C-alpha cells in the first residue's frame, strides 16, 4: 500500500517532468495543497488570511474565489502567481519562501484544469510484522525474582547487589573491599551535588559510628538544593539546554530559556515523580487554562515553563535567509529526536527519510509521530524564536505573556498611567513648534522606556489546529507522499490514536495523549531508559551502554534482569527519582572501593560486571564549582537570569564574578559559542542539538589551564589566606589544605612531602626577596594540590 502510493508519486514526477499528458485522476488535492502550503499559506492560511483568502482546502479556496474550476488561466490564483504579484517580491525571502517553480505551477494548473478533483485518503494503518515486536526492549518490564546467594543475605546487601553478584559469580568474582569512609563521602558528595564535602561534613561522618551514618549522609545530600543543580544538569544535557539560538555564527541570546533551567532544577529538588515531570514537559500547556488570565497561578506558569523542553533545539529561523521550511523541519526533527532518543531510547530520526533500516519504525510512523506535535510545531505556520531586524511583518513569536493576576494588574495600572502621560505629551507635541519640540520628544522617549511588558515564557503551546501532515519522501518537503494522522508508532500499539482531554479551549490534546501513553506504568521503554540513565551517571556506564538507543543496534543490556527490576521498582515507588538514588547509593556495589584486584583486572578488565567502583575524572562543572567551593569563592545563589561571560581576545572566556564570587557553572550563560574556556577544556559539550553522553578527554590544555591560569592561581592565594586565618602552625595549615582539596587526611609520606615542599617554597620566595613568603608558599602548595591527580579524580 505504502509502496503503491510512492511509486505513483514517482510516476507523477516523471510524467510532469517529461511533459507527458497527465490523466485527470492522477492530480488531486494531495498534489495541489502541499504546493500551496509551501508557497502561499503563510499569508492565506490559519492565522493570516490576506484578502480574506484561505488556501488550505478546496472548500476555502472556492469560498475565496481563488480559482475557476477547469479554467486555470482565468483563475485569480494562477494569474497572480504568473504575474509575480504573489508572493510579493518585497516579502518573499523575509517570509522564508521561494517563488513557485514551474513544475509546481503546472501541478496547480493541471489540478484546476481537471476540475480540482478531491480523493478521500484511506488511513489504513501500516501492517506490522509480529516478529518485529519481539525485540527485548519492546516488552513490558516485569519484576524478576531477586537471585538468592549466601553472600547476598548479609544485611548490607541490596537487591541490586544480588543481581550483580549473580553475574560476578559466574566469573568467579565478587565485589572488592568496601571503600574507606572518606573516600565514600567524597564520591557520594560529588556524585549527588557536584561539590566536594566540607571539612565539617568529613569530621561529622567520621565521628558518627552509628550503622545509619552513611544513610544519613545520603539523605542530607538529597535534601540539599545542590542536588537539583547537579542532577538537573544531567537532564539539561539530554534536553540540549542553551541560552542561545545556535545555527548561526551570531548565536543570538535566547532570553527566558533560564526559566526552564530553573524548572528542571526545582523539579529534581522536589523529587517530582518522573511521570509527572515528563507529562509537564511534553504537554504542560494542555494541563492548564492559561487563557483565563484571572486564574493564572504559580502552577499555570510552571506548566508552561516546563514545555521549554521542546524549545531547546538550535534554531536559526529568526533570521530571514535561514527561515525556510527546510530549516524549520530541521528544528522539529532535532526536537523530536531529543525526545525520542533521550526519553524513549528510539532512533526515530532514522525514519525521517526512509523506513528505519533496523527497527520496526516506518517512515509513516515518523510522520504520524510528528503529526502529534503539529498543532504546536507547524512548519507552515511557524512561530519565530525572537525578533530580528527586517523580520517579516506577519511573523509571530513563540513567547507567551503570562503573569500572576496581581502582577498583571500592577503592570497594566503602571502602563495606563504612563500612557495617559504619553498622550498628554504627544498632544502637546502636535501644537508645539521650534526648539521646545526637541525637549518634548526627549520626554516622550523617557516615558516610552518606562512601559513595562508582561513577563514572557518561552513555551510550546497547542494552537488547536494545524496544517495537514504528509510523509516527506526522502525527507524532502517538496516531495509529499501520503497524508497521515497523529499516531503512536505502530510497533507499540494496535489501537488508533485518540487525543486526551486538554484543560482549556481550543487545544487538540494530542501531546497530552502522547505524554500519558509514554508514562503508562506498563510502557516498555520510558522507565527502563530513565533508570539506565540514572545508573550511568552513578556508575559511569549504562546497563545499556547506548543510552539513547534501545533498538536492535543499541547495545544489549549487561544485566537485563536488574534493568527490569529497577524499572518496575521506580514505577511502583511513584516514579520517585530520589528513591532510585537511595537504592543505588546504598548498594554494596556503589560502596566498594575503586581498587582493581589482579583477578578483576584479568577477568573483568572493562568493569562490565562492576567488580569495583570505576575511578573517574571530575567533569567540567565539578572542576569549576569544586575549586571555587574549596577556595570559599562559590556563590550558592540559586536560579534567575544567567551571569554573563567575559570574552578576552576571542579565545579566553571566563565568567563575570559578583561580590561574593562566582556562581555554579549552570548559572553562567550557556551559549553555544562563548563557552567558558575552563569548562570547554574539561569537555563541556556544545549543544548541537543536545548531549546524550559526554566525552571525557585527557588533553594537554587541561594541565596547562590549571597550572597557568591566573584565576586558578588567585584561588590558591585566596584559599591559603583563609587557611592561615583558621590555623596555627604550618603543618596544621598544610593538613587543612589537603583536607579541603583532596577530602581526606594526608598519609605520613604525603605529609612529609608537603611539609618539605612548603619549606623549600618558602626558601625560594625568600631568595627571590618576595614579601609574605609563608602565605605565598602555602598558596603554592594549594596550587600544586589543585593540580594533583588526587584532586582531579574520584576514587
Amino acid at each position, binding site marked *: 500500500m505504502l509502496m503503491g502510493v510512492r511509486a505513483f508519486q514517482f510516476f507523477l514526477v516523471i510524467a510532469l517532468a517529461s511533459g507527458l499528458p497527465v490523466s485527470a485522476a492522477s492530480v488531486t488535492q494531495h498534489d495541489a495543497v502541499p504546493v500551496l502550503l509551501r508557497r502561499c499559506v503563510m499569508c492565506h492560511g490559519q492565522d493570516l488570511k490576506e484578502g480574506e483568502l484561505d488556501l488550505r482546502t478546496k472548500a476555502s479556496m472556492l469560498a475565496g474565489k481563488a480559482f475557476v474550476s477547469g479554467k486555470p488561466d482565468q483563475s485569480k490564483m494562477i494569474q497572480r502567481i504568473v504575474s509575480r504579484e504573489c508572493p510579493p517580491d518585497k516579502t518573499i*525571502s523575509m517570509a522564508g519562501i*521561494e*517563488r513557485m517553480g514551474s513544475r509546481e505551477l503546472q501541478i496547480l494548473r493541471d489540478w484546476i484544469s481537471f476540475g480540482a478533483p478531491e480523493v478521500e485518503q484511506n488511513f489504513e494503518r501500516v501492517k506490522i510484522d509480529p516478529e518485529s515486536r519481539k525485540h527485548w526492549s519492546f516488552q513490558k518490564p516485569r519484576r524478576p525474582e531477586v537471585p538468592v546467594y549466601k553472600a547476598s543475605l548479609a544485611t548490607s546487601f541490596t537487591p541490586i547487589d544480588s543481581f550483580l553478584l549473580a553475574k560476578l559469580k559466574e566469573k568467579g568474582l565478587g565485589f572488592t573491599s568496601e571503600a574507606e569512609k572518606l573516600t565514600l563521602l567524597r564520591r557520594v558528595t560529588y556524585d549527588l551535588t557536584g561539590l566536594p564535602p566540607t571539612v565539617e561534613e568529613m569530621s561529622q561522618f567520621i565521628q558518627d559510628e552509628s550503622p545509619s551514618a552513611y544513610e544519613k549522609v545520603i539523605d542530607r545530600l538529597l535534601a540539599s538544593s545542590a542536588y537539583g543543580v547537579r542532577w538537573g544538569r544531567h537532564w539539561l544535557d539530554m534536553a540540549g539546554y542553551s541560552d542561545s539560538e*545556535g*545555527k*548561526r*555564527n551570531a548565536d543570538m541570546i535566547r532570553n527566558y530559556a533560564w526559566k526552564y533551567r530553573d524548572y528542571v532544577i526545582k523539579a529534581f529538588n522536589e523529587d517530582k515523580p518522573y511521570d509527572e515531570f515528563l507529562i509537564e514537559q511534553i504537554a504542560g500547556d494542555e494541563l492548564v487554562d492559561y487563557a483565563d488570565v484571572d486564574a493564572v497561578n504559580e502552577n499555570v506558569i510552571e506548566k508552561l515553563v516546563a514545555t521549554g523542553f521542546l524549545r531547546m533545539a538550535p534554531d*536559526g529561523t529568526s533570521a530571514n*535567509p*535561514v527561515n525556510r521550511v527546510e530549516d524549520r523541519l530541521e528544528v522539529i526533527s532535532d526536537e523530536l529526536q531529543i525526545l525520542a532518543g533521550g526519553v524513549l531510547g528510539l*532512533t526515530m*530520526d*532514522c525514519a525521517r527519510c526512509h523506513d528505519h533500516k533496523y527497527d520496526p519504525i516506518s517512515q509513516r510512523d515518523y510522520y504520524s509521530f510528528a503529526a502529534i506535535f503539529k498543532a504546536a510545531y507547524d512548519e507552515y505556520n511557524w512561530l519565530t524564536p525572537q525578533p530580528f531586524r527586517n523580520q517579516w511583518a506577519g511573523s509571530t513569536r513563540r513567547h507567551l505573556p503570562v503573569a500572576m493576576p496581581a502582577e498583571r494588574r500592577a503592570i497594566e495600572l503602571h502602563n495606563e498611567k504612563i500612557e495617559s502621560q504619553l498622550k498628554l505629551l504627544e498632544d502637546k507635541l502636535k501644537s508645539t513648534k521650534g526648539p521646545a519640540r526637541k525637549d518634548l520628544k526627549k520626554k516622550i522617549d523617557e516615558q516610552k522606556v518606562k512601559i513595562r511588558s508582561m513577563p514572557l515564557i518561552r513555551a510550546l503551546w497547542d494552537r488547536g489546529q494545524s496544517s495537514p501532515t504528509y510523509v516527506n519522501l526522502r525527507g524532502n518537503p517538496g516531495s509529499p507522499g501520503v497524508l497521515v494522522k497523529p499516531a503512536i508508532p505502530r510497533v507499540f500499539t494496535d489501537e488508533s490514536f485518540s487525543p486526551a482531554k486538554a484543560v482549556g479551549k481550543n487545544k487538540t490534546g494530542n501531546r497530552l495523549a502522547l505524554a500519558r501513553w509514554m508514562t503508562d506504568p506498563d510502557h516498555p521503554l520510558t522507565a527502563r531508559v530513565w533508570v539506565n540513565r540514572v545508573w550511568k551517571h552513578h556508575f559511569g556506564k549504562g546497563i545499556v551502554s*547506548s543510552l539513547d*538507543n534501545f*533498538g536492535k*543496534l*543499541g*547495545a544489549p543490556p549487561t544485566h537485563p534482569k536488574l534493568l527490569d527490576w529497577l524499572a518496575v521498582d521506580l514505577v511502583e515507588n511513584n516514579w520517585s527519582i530520589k528513591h532510585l538514588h537511595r537504592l543505588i547509593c546504598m548498594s554494596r556495589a556503589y560502596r566498594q572501593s575503586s581498587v*582493581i584486584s*589482579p583477578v578483576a*583486572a584479568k577477568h573483568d578488565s572493562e568493569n562490565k560486571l562492576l567488580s569495583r567502583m570505576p*575511578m*573517574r*575524572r571530575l567533569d567540567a562543572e565539578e572542576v569549576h564549582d569544586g575549586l571555587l567551593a574549596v577556595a570559599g569563592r562559590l556563590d550558592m545563589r540559586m536560579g534567575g537570569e544567567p551571569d554573563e561571560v567575559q570574552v578576552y581576545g*576571542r*579565545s*579566553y572566556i571566563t565568567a563575570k564574578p559578583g561580590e561574593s564570587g562566582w556562581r555554579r557553572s549552570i548559572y553562567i550563560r550557556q551559549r553555544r*559559542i562563548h563557552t567558558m574556556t575552563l569548562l570547554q577544556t574539561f*569537555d563541556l559539550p556544545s549543544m*548541537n*542539538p543536545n548531549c546524550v553522553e559526554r*566525552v571525557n*578527554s*585527557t*588533553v*594537554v*590544555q587541561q*594541565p*596547562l*589551564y590549571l*597550572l*597557568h*591560569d*591566573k584565576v586558578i*592561581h588567585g584561588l590558591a592565594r585566596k584559599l591559603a589566606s583563609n587557611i592561615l586565618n583558621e590555623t596555627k602552625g604550618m603543618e596544621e595549615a598544610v593538613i587543612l589544605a589537603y583536607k579541603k582539596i583532596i577530602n581526606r587526611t594526608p598519609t605520613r609520606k*604525603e605529609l612529609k*612531602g608537603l611539609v618539605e*615542599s612548603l619549606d*623549600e617554597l618558602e626558601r*625560594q620566595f625568600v*631568595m*627571590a626577596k*618576595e614579601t609574605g613568603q609563608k602565605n605565598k608558599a602555602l598558596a*603554592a602548595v594549594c*596550587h600544586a*594540590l589543585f593540580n*594533583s*591527580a*588526587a584532586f582531579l579524580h574520584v576514587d
Partner: protein
Amino acid sequence: MSLSNINRRTFFDRVSDGLYGVGLSTLLMQDLYGEKPHHSAPLPTNIRPRRPHFAPKAKAVIQFCMQGGPSQVDLFDPKPALEKYHGKDAPEEFTKVAAAGRSMKGKVMRSHWKFSQHGQSGAWVSELLPHTAKEIDQIAIIRSMYSVHENHEPACYKWQTGETFPGHPTMGAWITYGLGSVNQNLPAYVVLADPDNKFAVNGVENWMSGYLPPLFQGTSIKSEGTPMLHLKPDYTEPAGVTAAKRNLINALDQLHKVKRPNQPVLDSRIANYQMAARMQVEATEALDVFEENEATRVMYGVGEKVTDNFGKRCIMARRLVERGVRFVQIYPQGQKWDNHNEIKKTLPAACRESDKPCAALLRDLRQRGLLDDVLVLWGGEFGRLPMAEGDYAKAGRDHGPSGFTNWMAGGGVKGGVVHGETDDIGFGAVKDRVSIQDWHATILHLLGMNHEKLYFDRNGLHERLTHTHPTRVVSEILT
C-alpha cells in the same frame, strides 16, 4: 624527530612499532574502522598516530584559508570575453545557473590586470601574483570549483565542515581524528590566525571539532607574543617556585598512583602533565622563526612591512609540519579577499600580503624535499562575480559561488595542471565541476583516507565530512 627524517616507511613503522605498541595501534584501527560500526565505539581520546586506509601521498597539510572569495577572473582564470561584454548585462545563458532570487544588477567588468603564461606548463597567472607564478609548475589549479551558498557564513561552514550551518566538525578536526599526530608534544591541528585577532567570518568556528571530542579542534597559536593560551603562566613567580611546585605535583601523583595500580586513567593523566611540560619547551622552539637563517627569512618576506607577519606564519607552518603537526591553517586578516569595493586597490593589497610568503613556502618545502609529503591548499569559500559592483570607477565584485578557483600543491598532487573550466565570462563552472565535497574527498584521499570510511558514529548515524552528498575524488590532478 623532524618530518624530513621520517620517510613513509618509518612513519608506518612508528605507528605500530614499540613506540606506541602494535596492540594499541591495532586497537585504535578497530575503533575507527572496526567490524561493528553500529555500536558507539569508545572514542580515541588521544592524538597518537593512526594508520590511514591506504598508503598516503601526503602526511601533513598546510591550508591557506583565503576567506572572503578571491576573484578568479583577476587571478587564475583569464577571460578574454570579458572585453566583449564589458559594460553590458551578463548573458542569461551564463547566469542562469545562479540561485533564484539573486540580484544580477551589475554590468560585466573586465579585469584590471594582465595575465601571462608561466613555467613549463604555461599556466596563466595574473600579474598580481608574480611570486606564485614562479612556482606554478608545482601547482594544480582547479578552475571549476563551485559552492552552494552565496553568503560568507553558510559558505564558510560548507567549505570547512561540508554543511552550511555550525555543529559539524571541520576538515582539520576530521583529519586529526582520522590520523592522529606524529608529535605528541605539539597540538595536532594548529591555526595561525591574524595576530591582532581580526578574524574572518565565523571566527573560531572555522576550526571547531563539532561533535568530535574537543581534542581534535584546532589550537590557535599566536604569531606574536605568547603563542598559545596558557602555554606560559599568566602570572609571575620565581623560577625556583615553579620547579618546586612541579616536583611536589610529581611526588604526590606518584604516591597516589602506587596505591592505585592498573588505573590507565592515572597513567594517561600523568603522561599528560609531562606532555604539558614538554610542550612549553617544544612549542616555543618550533615557533621561533629567528632560528631560521636570514636568507630564508628574507625569502618569506619577513622584515618587509607588508609581508612580515604573513611570512612569519608561513615559516612557523613549515617548522610545525617538520615536527609532525598534521594540519596547519593560515588565515589572512579579516575579510581581505572580500573585495566588494574598489577592487583595483583592495585585491592587490590582499595579494601583496600573501603572494611572496606563499610562494616562498612552496619553494622552501620543495628545496627541503618536503613538498612530496606536505599538501598545500589555497583558496576561499567561493569566488567573485565577473560583474561590477557599484560605480565602475570604484567598483568591486560581489560573491560568486557558481564557479571559482582553488589550487593545491605537493603531497601527491600533479604540478603544472589546470583542471576544469568556467564559462566564457567566468561566472559558473561548466567543465569537470568540482564540488566542496569532491574537494574534501580529494584531500582525504591524498592523506590515505577514503571519505566514506572515515566516519564518526553519532547516535547511530554515520557522520562523514562529505555527509551524504554525491562525491567524487578529483583523480585527474593526482600523481
